[in-house]
């Protein structure tokens, strides 16, 4: 049994009489110890999917209209608030995009970490354990830092504190929603290095949401690419980077600027993401797709296994020109 199994999840946001579907029929699984990356532009539904795992979307306006989210076998969407409180932090922990805004400004960071311990591991809710956690995430002088307020720490340190808080209850799954987007590049690398290191040491599963394709080669076991509320490609990281199949994934890979090969004009994807209230009826990427044909705008394609474990939502993936080689670093 996988640690997390999302089946046909459909999430809508109430807008007037109708609902805007932000996540449409998303299915994915995460095994124990596995790292899954979810990639996609803003608004593609990746954060909505991630927040749904602990039923964290404010409702209203959010509404779960279908599907199930099985965490250790139990459907999260059917849980009452007590059960939810137990799995939040206890089984699935979150690290968010803006560490500065995600820490309570009027509570000392040590106190905030201790609260997570009190909620899920009351026997370990001691100052020593807080210090140990701060050490684990690489914060120097942890005894002193525990007494600090969030604003006294740098962005990178704040994100380390968020990580310590998320790891305190020893969760099975860590959901990191663009954990490095708000940080500068050198700090990004440090935080990712830390994530990878922690994963090895603690053996938890990670769901990493990112806009940055360059990261996935380093850390992901599998990758799900989302577009307009759907998963359009789901594959082992190596396979996806080596041979992206969906025209959208290929365009994403192509638009990553390269260090080698001289200066080029930055490749972009023409057009823009369709609005939730104006979804194309057929394939959602068709209006922007370089290989679109008339059939694409009528029949909606399904996510099908094209090669071993490599799923793609495009029947014509095999009929496009070869990709420029070495667009991305492929891990050995």
């Amino acid at each position, binding site marked *: 049994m996988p640690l997390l199994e999302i089946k046909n999840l459909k999430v809508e946001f109430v807008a007037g009489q109708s609902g805007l579907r932000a996540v449409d029929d998303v299915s994915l699984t995460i095994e124990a110890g596995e790292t899954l990356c979810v990639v996609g532009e803003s608004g593609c539904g990746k954060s909505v999917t991630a927040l749904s795992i602990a039923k*964290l979307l404010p409702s209203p306006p959010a509404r779960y209209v279908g599907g199930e989210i099985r965490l250790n076998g139990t459907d999260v969407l059917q849980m009452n608030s007590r059960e939810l*409180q137990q799995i939040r932090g206890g089984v699935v*922990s979150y690290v968010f995009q803006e560490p500065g805004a*995600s820490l*309570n*400004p*009027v509570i000392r960071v040590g106190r905030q970490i201790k609260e997570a311990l009190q*909620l*899920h591991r009351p026997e370990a809710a001691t100052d020593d354990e807080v210090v140990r956690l701060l050490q684990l995430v690489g914060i120097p002088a942890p005894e002193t830092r525990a007494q600090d307020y969030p604003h006294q720490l740098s962005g990178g340190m704040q994100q380390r504190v968020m990580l310590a808080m998320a790891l305190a*209850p020893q969760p099975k799954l860590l959901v990191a929603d663009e954990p490095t987007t708000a940080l500068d590049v050198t700090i990004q690398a440090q935080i990712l290095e830390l994530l990878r290191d922690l994963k090895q040491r603690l053996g938890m599963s990670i769901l990493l949401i990112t806009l940055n394709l360059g990261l996935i080669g380093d850390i992901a076991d599998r990758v799900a690419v989302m577009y307009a509320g759907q998963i359009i490609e789901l594959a082992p990281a190596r396979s996806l980077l080596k041979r992206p199949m969906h025209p959208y994934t290929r365009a994403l890979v192509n638009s990553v600027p390269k260090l080698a090969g001289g200066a080029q004009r930055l490749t972009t994807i023409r057009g823009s993401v369709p609005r939730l209230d104006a979804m194309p009826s057929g394939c959602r990427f068709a209006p922007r797709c370089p290989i679109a044909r008339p059939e694409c705008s009528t029949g909606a394609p399904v996510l099908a296994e094209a090669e071993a474990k490599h799923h793609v939502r495009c029947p014509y993936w095999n009929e496009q020109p070869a990709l420029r080689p070495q667009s991305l670093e492929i891990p050995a």
Partner: protein
Amino acid sequence: MWTRLLNRLFWSVVTLLTTAVLVFLLINVVPGDVAHVIAGPKASPEVLQQIRERYHLDEPVWKRLGYYLAQLAHGDLGHSFVTEEPVAQAILRRLPVTAALAATAVVMWMLIAMPLGVLTAKHRGSWFDRGVLVAATVSLSLPSFWLARMLQYWFSYKLGWFPVAGVRGFTSLLLPATTLAILFIGYYARLIHSNMVEVLDSPYVRAARAKGAAETTVLFKHALPNAVIPVITILGLDVAVLLGGVLFTENVFALPGLGKLAVESVFNLDVPMIMGAVLVSATAVVTVNLVVDLLYRWVDPRIKDAY
């Protein structure tokens, strides 16, 4: 920190001095012969003359202002024209009544407004939220003298639960404090509501939920302290105004507080007493502002590092 405090104290003194001068000049613009008020309508010209000489009433305004300020510099607020009682003593006798009334009222309205604000923000758009909004609008539009009279009529006269007027222990404060609390609850409930709505949308509240904290903990421990920070400034101003004397409520309930003292001394043209009451008011504003500043450093750790 210390230079900042000294700086604040210096400007506080300037504020008080300016207030004293302005009010002194204003009182002298008011028509009416103080000597007549003191001696009564049938006093002989000789008596009037005596009074004028005694209180320097026949000298020019700027000279009288000088005498007053010199007296103030010695820490002397003077004596009442009417009762001859030292002004300082009269004020000290009445200040505790007003302070106790204000404190009781503040505690009452904050204890009710905070949960109301939190719960209406949590359930915004519900019937409960709308009901509180309507009640709040009504409460802050009520005229205080009317409300005081109504409460007095029903709860003291008809039901006999509270003393009708005067001071007989803490129970006499309850009805006047309730009057004040009702006038302020609505405003503060809405103020806390709108701050809470903003705070509840913030990432750290989502993070607190993601941790597995219970909803009451999220609301009252994570969100409320942040939502209350901006309220402190306004609360400080209101408390300062109340400490200066609660005019209508004290008069309706015949509480011997500063408000009643101020009203009486204005009717009597009792210049030293008016000046005393005004200076106490101004001191209250200045002090409370200072306290609010210090309080901010305590409730909002971000401010401590800003200086």
